[in-house]
C-alpha cells in the first residue's frame, strides 16, 4: 500500500520532469518484478498500464453522475480536466490506440461544452504532437482551476481515498487547482467558465486586468460642441437627480474650456474610477469622463466639422422603443466571391473586397434610386458636397480598384469617406483614394495574410491584424508600422478602435479578446470567455463597453474597466460577422451568417448589471428585434451619424 504510493509519487515526478523513458523502464521493471514475485497480482498489474486510466475515469464518471444533485454540477466539472489529461497521459505513454478508444468512449460527455477543444485534441496521435499543439501544451503546462464548495471537495476526497484509484488521484493532484469556498455550492450549473480557464493564463489575465484604463471619451469632441448649448438645461435636470455634484460641475467645465490642465483630467479620471459604484442611476453618457488623446490627432476641416454638427443635430434618438431604420445593400451575382464589405459613415459609398483580388466601390447615390427618401437624401447631399464634385461620368456602376495579389479580406473607409483601406492575403494593406480612384500607398509589414484593418475614429491612424499573430498600428504617412502588438497565441482575427483612440481591441482564434494601449503597445486587458474564434468587435460610443461576437453565434458584452463579461447574448445560430453600436450607445446591432440582423437593448442590460451585483451574469441583454433577410448573410453594419443603420451582405442562393 505505502509502497505503491511511493511508486506513484516517483512516476508522477518522472512524468512531470518529462523523463518518459525512465518512467517506462521503471514500469517495465516493476511489472517484471511483480510478475515474478506474485503471479495473480501480476495480472492486474499488466492491465494497469493503459486500462487503469479508462477504468479509473469511468468509475469517477459514474460516481460523479450518481452524486447528490446539489453538488453534482460541481463534481462534474472535475471530469473534463481529468478526461483531457487521461487522454494526454495515454498518448504521452505511447498507448495511442488505447488513447483513441478512451477518447471516443467518453467524448459525448464533453461535446456540448468543449467541442472545439475536442476537435483540436482529436488530431493528437503521437507524443510529438502533444508538444506541437498549443492547446495541449497549455493544458500540460497550466493547471485547471475549479471552484467548488467545501462539501463537494470533501466528497471528492472521500471518493478518491475510498476507491484507492491512484491514477485519478495523480491526475487530479497534478493538473487541477481547487478553489474551495465555504458554504453552499454555486447555483449556475451551466457555467463552463469554472473549468476552461487555465491557471497561469488566468493569473496573467488577472494581473493584466488590474492595470488602470481610461475608458472615457476624448475631451473637446464634436459631440460636446453640440452639447454645449444644451448643457445648461441638462445640468439643471441632472442636478435634480442624485448625482455626484463634483462630477456635474466638472463636465461642463471640460466642454467649456479648450485647454484644460492635465491635472484636472487626472482627477476626473480618478473620480470616475472610484465613484463608479456610487453613481448608479445616471446614464453612462452624461458621466463619461474625458481623457486626453495620447496620439496627436489630425485636425478636422471646418466644413467637415459643420457637416458633422449638422448630422448630430438631426440625429434620431434611438432606444428600446424607437428602433432604427435599416437600409440594406445586397450584393448580387457575387458567385460566393465577396469576402468583405464596408460602408462609409454616411452610407453613400459601399466597398466590396473579392477573392479575385479586386476591390469594388459603389456610389449609392448613383444607383439606389429606390433608397432616396428624405432622411437619406439629406445625408447624401451633405456627403456629396464634401466628397464628390459630381462631375465624373462612369461607364460601370462601380469603381474597380486593382492592386492586390490575393483575396481581399477586409476594407474600411476613413471617417469622412475620402480614403479606403484594404487588407489582403498577400500580406499587404493598401490605401486608396475615393476621390482620385487610385492606389496611394502599399503598406508592407505583416508576414502573413492580413485579416482585418480598421481606421481609427478620427482617421489618419489605422490598425491591422494578421495571421502572424500580431496587430499593428499604422499612420497613413508612414509605410512602417508605429506599434506591433504581440501576445495572442493564435491568429488575430479582428481589430477595433476604442472611441477615444487610445486603445485598440483585438479578437483572436485563441478565443480571447485583448485590449492594447496604443501609446505603450502594452496589453491592458484580456477578456476570457468565448468558446470559439472571435469574428467581430464593437466599442460602445461612451467607451465603457465592448461587444464581441464569435463563430458560434454568441455575443458578449464586456465592461472595459473591470474586464468582466456583463452579459452573454445568445440568439444567433451561426457566425456573428459584424456588430455595431448606435450612436448614443443604446442599441447594439448584430449581423450574422444565419441571415438575420438582430437588435439588442444595451441600456437594459447595463443598468441591471450596475444595480445588481456584478458577479452574476445572466442573459440580461434583451433581444429587441430579429430582422431576417432573404438568404443574405449580413457582412457589415454601420450606423450613420444620424442613426440610420446600413447593412450589407451578399445574396447566397445555395445556403
Amino acid at each position: 500500500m505505502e509502497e505503491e504510493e511511493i511508486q506513484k509519487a516517483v512516476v508522477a515526478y518522472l512524468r512531470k520532469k518529462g523523463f518518459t523513458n525512465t518512467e517506462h523502464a521503471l514500469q517495465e521493471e516493476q511489472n517484471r518484478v511483480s510478475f515474478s514475485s506474485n503471479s495473480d497480482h501480476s495480472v492486474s498489474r499488466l492491465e494497469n498500464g493503459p486500462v487503469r486510466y479508462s477504468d479509473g475515469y469511468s468509475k469517477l464518471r459514474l460516481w460523479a453522475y450518481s452524486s447528490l444533485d446539489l453538488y453534482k454540477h460541481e463534481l462534474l466539472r472535475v471530469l473534463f480536466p481529468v478526461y483531457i489529461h487521461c487522454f494526454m497521459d495515454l498518448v504521452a505513454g505511447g498507448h495511442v490506440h488505447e488513447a483513441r478508444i478512451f477518447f471516443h468512449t467518453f467524448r459525448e460527455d464533453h461535446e456540448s461544452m468543449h467541442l472545439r477543444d475536442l476537435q483540436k485534441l482529436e488530431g493528437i496521435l503521437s507524443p510529438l504532437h502533444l508538444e506541437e499543439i498549443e492547446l495541449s501544451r497549455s493544458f500540460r503546462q497550466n493547471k485547471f482551476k475549479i471552484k467548488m464548495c467545501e462539501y463537494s471537495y470533501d466528497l471528492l476526497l472521500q471518493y478518491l481515498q475510498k476507491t484507492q484509484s491512484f491514477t485519478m488521484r495523480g491526475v487530479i493532484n497534478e493538473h487541477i487547482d481547487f478553489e474551495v469556498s465555504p458554504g453552499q455550492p454555486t447555483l449556475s450549473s451551466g457555467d463552463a467558465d469554472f473549468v476552461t480557464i487555465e491557471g497561469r493564463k488566468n493569473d496573467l489575465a488577472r494581473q493584466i486586468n488590474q492595470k488602470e484604463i481610461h475608458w472615457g471619451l476624448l475631451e473637446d469632441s464634436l459631440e460636446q460642441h453640440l452639447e454645449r448649448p444644451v448643457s445648461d438645461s441638462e445640468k439643471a435636470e441632472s442636478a435634480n437627480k442624485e448625482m455626484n455634484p463634483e462630477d456635474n460641475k466638472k463636465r461642463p467645465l471640460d466642454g467649456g474650456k479648450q485647454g484644460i490642465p492635465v491635472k484636472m483630467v487626472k482627477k476626473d479620471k480618478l473620480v470616475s474610477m472610484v465613484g463608479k459604484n456610487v453613481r448608479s442611476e445616471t446614464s453612462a453618457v452624461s458621466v463619461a469622463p474625458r481623457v486626453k488623446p495620447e496620439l496627436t490627432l489630425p485636425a478636422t476641416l471646418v466644413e467637415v466639422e459643420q457637416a458633422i454638427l449638422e448630422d448630430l443635430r438631426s440625429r434620431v434618438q434611438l432606444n428600446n422603443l424607437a428602433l432604427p431604420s435599416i437600409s440594406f445593400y445586397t450584393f448580387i451575382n457575387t458567385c460566393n466571391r465577396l469576402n468583405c464589405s464596408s460602408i462609409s459613415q454616411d452610407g453613400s459609398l459601399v466597398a466590396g473586397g473579392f477573392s479575385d483580388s479586386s476591390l469594388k466601390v459603389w456610389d449609392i447615390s448613383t444607383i439606389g434610386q429606390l433608397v432616396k427618401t428624405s432622411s437619406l437624401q439629406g445625408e447624401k447631399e451633405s456627403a456629396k458636397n464634401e466628397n464628390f464634385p459630381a462631375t465624373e461620368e462612369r461607364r460601370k456602376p462601380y469603381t474597380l480598384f486593382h492592386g492586390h495579389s490575393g483575396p481581399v479580406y477586409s476594407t474600411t473607409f476613413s471617417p469622412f469617406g475620402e480614403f479606403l483601406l484594404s487588407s489582403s492575403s498577400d500580406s499587404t494593406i493598401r490605401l486608396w483614394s475615393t476621390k482620385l480612384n487610385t492606389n496611394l500607398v502599399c503598406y508592407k509589414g505583416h508576414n502573413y495574410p492580413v485579416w482585418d484593418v480598421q481606421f481609427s475614429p478620427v482617421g489618419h491612424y489605422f490598425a491591422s491584424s494578421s495571421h502572424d499573430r500580431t496587430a499593428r498600428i499604422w499612420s497613413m504617412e508612414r509605410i512602417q508600422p508605429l506599434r506591433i502588438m504581440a501576445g495572442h497565441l493564435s491568429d488575430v482575427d479582428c481589430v477595433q478602435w476604442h472611441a477615444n483612440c487610445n486603445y485598440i481591441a483585438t479578437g483572436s482564434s485563441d478565443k480571447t479578446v485583448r485590449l492594447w494601449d496604443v501609446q505603450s503597445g502594452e496589453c491592458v486587458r484580456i477578456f476570457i470567455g468565448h468558446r470559439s474564434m472571435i469574428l467581430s468587435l464593437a466599442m460602445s460610443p461612451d467607451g465603457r463597453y465592448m461587444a464581441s461576437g464569435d463563430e458560434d453565434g454568441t455575443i458578449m458584452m464586456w465592461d472595459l474597466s473591470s474586464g468582466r463579461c456583463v452579459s452573454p447574448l445568445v440568439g444567433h445560430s451561426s457566425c456573428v460577422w459584424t456588430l455595431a453600436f448606435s450612436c448614443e450607445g443604446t442599441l447594439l446591432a448584430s449581423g450574422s451568417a444565419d441571415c438575420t440582423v438582430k437588435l439588442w437593448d444595451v441600456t437594459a442590460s447595463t443598468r441591471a448589471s450596475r444595480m445588481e451585483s456584478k458577479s452574476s451574469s445572466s442573459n440580461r441583454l434583451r433581444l429587441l428585434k430579429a430582422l431576417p433577410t432573404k438568404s443574405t448573410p449580413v457582412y457589415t453594419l454601420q450606423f450613420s451619424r444620424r442613426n440610420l443603420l446600413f447593412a450589407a451582405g451578399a445574396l447566397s442562393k445555395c445556403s
Partner: protein
Amino acid sequence: MSIVPKETIEVIAQSIGIANLSSDVALALAPDVEYRLREIMQEAIKCMRHSKRTVLTAEDVNSALSLRNVEPIYGFASGDPLRFKRAVGHKDLFYIDDRDVDFKEVIDAPLPKAPLDTAVVAHWLAIEGVQPAIPENTQVEAIVAPSENKKSENSKEDGLLVDLKLPVKHVLSRELQLYFDKITELTVTRPESILFKEALVSLAADSGIHPLVPYFSYFIADEVARSLNDLPILFALMRVVRSLLQNPHIHIEPYLHQLMPSIITCVVAKRLGSKITDNHWELRDFSANLAASVCKRYGHVYHNLQSRLTKTLINAFLDPSKALTQHYGAIEGLAALGTSVVRLLVLPNLEPYLQLLEPEMQLEKQKNEMKRKEAWRVYGALLRAAGKCLYDRLKLFPGLLSPPRHPVWRINERVATSQSNKRMSSTNLSMQQPPLKKVAADGPTGALQPIAMTANLQGAPDGFPARSSGTGVGQPSTSGQVPMKTTGGRQEKGGSVAPKGSAVLAQAWKEDLDAGHLLASLFQSFGEGVFSFIQPVEMSFFI
C-alpha cells in the same frame, strides 16, 4: 489507430515512386499524415471564416496550403461545390466524376453567356424597426409582430400598431403599382382572356403582393357596387377574390370586412346581369361557396362572422317580399355553410315556404314562364340543400333506412300533402324504430325495450292526429323544428313510461327520431325526389 490506414500511405508512396516502403514506416507515417491533414483543415476553416462563408471550398484548402508554404492542389478550384459520385458496389467510396472533354466540342460550342456583373441593390430592411412587406424582404406575419410585442411589453404596443400600417402605404413600389393597374384593367376589360387566368394564378401564388391587398379589396368593393348588371365582370371579380383568398402569403383578415359585403351581394342580389340569358345562378353558387369558405377559414378568428352571414341570408330567405332569385341565393348560401345550418335554419321553415313556393311553380297559377323557371330553380336548390342534410344525417345512422325502403318505394305522390300519405310515412316511422332502438340501447335493460316499443307504437297514432289537425303546419316561425316538437312530445311520453335512468338511451333515441322524422317530413315536402340522396346508404345496406 489513425484514420489514415497504412495501405493509403503505401499507395501514396508507390505513386511517387517509392516501391519498397516498409510497413513499419507506413505505420509510423500514418498518424502524422492525419495530424497534418487536420492542421491544414483547421487553417482552411480560418480562411473560410475570413471569406465570410460557412461552406468550405477547395479554394480555402489551397489558401491554407499556401499559408504553410505548400504548393496548392491544382484542378479543383471552382466556384461550384464538387460533385461526388458513389463508386459502384461500395458504400462509402466516392469519387469525383472527371469526364474527358473533346477539344472539338469545346471549340465548336457557342460562347456561353457572360456572367452577370456584380451589383449592389438597396432596399429597406426595416423602417423604424418594422419590416416593410416588400418582395426584397422575407414575408412578415402582420399578426405576429403585435402579439410578440404584447408578450414583451404592453406599453409600446400602441405605438407599434400605428407603425405597422404606415410603411405599407408608404412602400408601394412602382412595380407593384404597375401590377395593380394591369390586374384591375384585365379584370374589367378582358375577363375571358387567357391572360386573366394567368393573372389569377399569379394572385393566388405571388408572395409580394401583400401591400396591394387593401387596394384590391377597395377595388373589388367599388367595382361590385358599380357593375351589378355586368355579369362577366362580377364573375371576374369573384374569381379575383377567390385567388386572393387562396394566396398563402398574404394576410387578408383585416380586409374581410370590406370583401364580405361584395361577396354577399353577389349571392343575394336581386338582379345580377342585364340580360335574361345571363347565367347568374352560377355566379350565385360560386359566391356562396366563397362566402362559406371564408367562414370556414376565418370563423375562429371572427366569431360573429358566420352568425352575421347566416342572419343576412336567413332574412333574405324568410322575407316573402324578396324576389325568388334572392331566395335562391340565400338557400345556396345557407347550404354552402353546411348541413347543420340547413337542418337548424332551413328545414324548420321548409313546409311553409314550400306552400308559398308551390303556386309559383304550377303552370296554371303562374303564367310568367320566367317566374316559373325561377321558382323551379329555388325548389331545386331547396331540394338539394335538404337532401344533403338528410344524407348527412343518414350517414350517422346507417341502419335507419332498411325497413322503410319498401313501403316508401310504393308511394308515388306529389308534393301536395295528403292525409294518407302522412299516415304512411308515419307508420314507416313507427316501424323503423324498434330495430333501431335495439342498436342504440344494446342492452342496459332488456325489459325496457318492449315497454318503450309499446309506448312508441302508442305514440305514433297519438301524435298523428295532432299533426293532421294542422299544428305542425301552422306555425312555421316558432323557435324550434315544428315537426320535431310533436315527436319530442311523443318521445317524452315514451320516456315517462320507461325508467328515468335511461337518459342516455333517451338521447340516442331522440337522435334516431330526429333522423327518422327528418326523412318523413322531407318526404312529405319533396316526395321521392328526396330518395336520390339516400341511394348510397341503401347500396351499402345491400352490400
